[in-house]
């Protein structure tokens, strides 16, 4: 079954709603919360890995649209700026999922956005601000 990663943005008014429960219960999706930042009275962000058949994922996303939860693929929210990267490789040992790796023997850094979970561990390690997070 396909698995995709999304960043969900909750407006303040929806912070109290059991959105994830509905995704699981009504749309039969397997959700894995990779990152959450939800505080009362503030907009919330959730990084979610959703597994399910494609029609069910689509139905889940339509539900999010209906209730007013913003969503977009995680890959759009994390960018690796190759033009800023110096390929020093400092980020590689900090990355827990292998999204940032080194090609050998060229020792060039590669970024696989599919593997990124937006944990942000690479951000303080990069001296050249080559990884950008947009949420």
């Amino acid at each position, binding site marked *: 079954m396909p698995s995709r990663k999304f960043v969900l943005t909750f407006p303040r008014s929806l912070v109290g709603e059991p959105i994830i429960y509905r995704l699981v219960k009504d749309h039969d999706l397997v959700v894995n919360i990779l990152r959450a930042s939800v505080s009362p009275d503030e907009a919330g962000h959730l990084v979610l890995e959703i597994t399910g058949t494609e029609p069910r994922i689509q139905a889940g996303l339509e539900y999010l649209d209906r209730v007013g939860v913003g969503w977009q693929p995680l890959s759009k929210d994390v960018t690796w700026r190759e033009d800023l990267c*110096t*390929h*020093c*490789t*400092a*980020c*590689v*040992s*900090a990355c827990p999922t292998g999204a940032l790796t*080194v090609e*050998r*023997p*060229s*020792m*060039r*850094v590669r970024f696989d956005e599919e593997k990124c979970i937006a944990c942000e561990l690479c951000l*303080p*390690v990069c*001296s*050249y*601000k080559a990884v950008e997070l947009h949420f």
Partner: protein
Amino acid sequence: MPKTIREINEKIRKGQVVVVDAEEIIDIVAERGPERAAREVDVVTTGTFGPMCSSGAFLNTGHTKPRSKFTRVTLNGVTAYAGLAAVDIYIGATELPVDDPENRIFPGRFRYGGGHVIEDLVAGKDIELHATAYGTDCYPLKEVHSWINLKTLNQAVLTNPRNAYQNYNVAVNRDSKRVLYTYMGVLQPNLGNANYCSAGQLSPLLNDPFYKTIGIGTRIFLGGGIGYVWWQGTQHAPAVKRAENGVPLVPAGTLAVCGDLKQMDRAWLRGASLVGYGVSLAVGVGIPIPILDVDIVKHCAVSDADLLAPVVDYSTDYPQCIPGNLGWVTYRELKSGKINIKGKEVPTAGLSSYAKAKEIATILKEWIRKGQFFLTEPVAPIPGPESGQTFNPFPMRPVT
């Protein structure tokens, strides 16, 4: 039959020079043997690209009308040193904005500083200069607030009192239970990671361990333009323990380099923000090594597998100046992504970019092949191991 630099330059002029980089020479020497390699190869190019704090630039802005003798200067809010002549200033790579929070909210982010000012200058961006002065009869203007740009400066000279460190420590956190923020990057507790900072087999002084060809006056690639070695670098310490191949087992030689900032390119001069530590400047340096004899080519044939770096604890030993290390590892091991320290497998990461070092060595190779870059005879050597010169601690004499 040994070659001379004059003969090599003649070959460059005729388009007959044979140039390879310090990675390619390894296999050439292995396949053809050092004697044949010394006959057939004329120049080996090296390169390095890493953060080097001891960097900065001298700038001359030209005179304002009326004239001013700058006393205090900031560039994009970053303090520049004005204690030179009226409109000469020095912007140091590690200098911070006047109102930077530094490490008051730990770890500080250090998003902008002198290194970034230099990068922005080279990128052609306008820089905001704010100067104050006490005013004199000959220099009456007491305040200047103006944009400046690299193209209208009279001189802009990148000047690095220390660069191209010959070998360096591998940094680890042995004792602290928290994450450490150092000039060697972020170090996780319990030997959680190891950071190294050298181009290894491509690094200039690891290919000329006894400074036989690199000396004062050597023409080099610097920041994308042409520069020169002007002195031994600060902390130059040639009299250290060396391996059988002559390569130092600890940080040893350094070079002071300079060059025209106007020729340089942002790709090779990058401001660096080291979280919890400060700001630095990554500088691209490439140095050609003329293959004058067999000994020189043998040294150039050194590979990552033959180069050893000391593993140093940055939780206690380094900050407290406790000598010793946790053993040595090869650059081949470091580049593999993991090393073994006292039985523990530790992931490694670099701070110096091997990929960029290779690009620099390749660019320099092309410059030489195309007849755009000629080699120089050093006008004087830098001190070698026979000098007995070491890097000594501060002999503190507290003032009571």
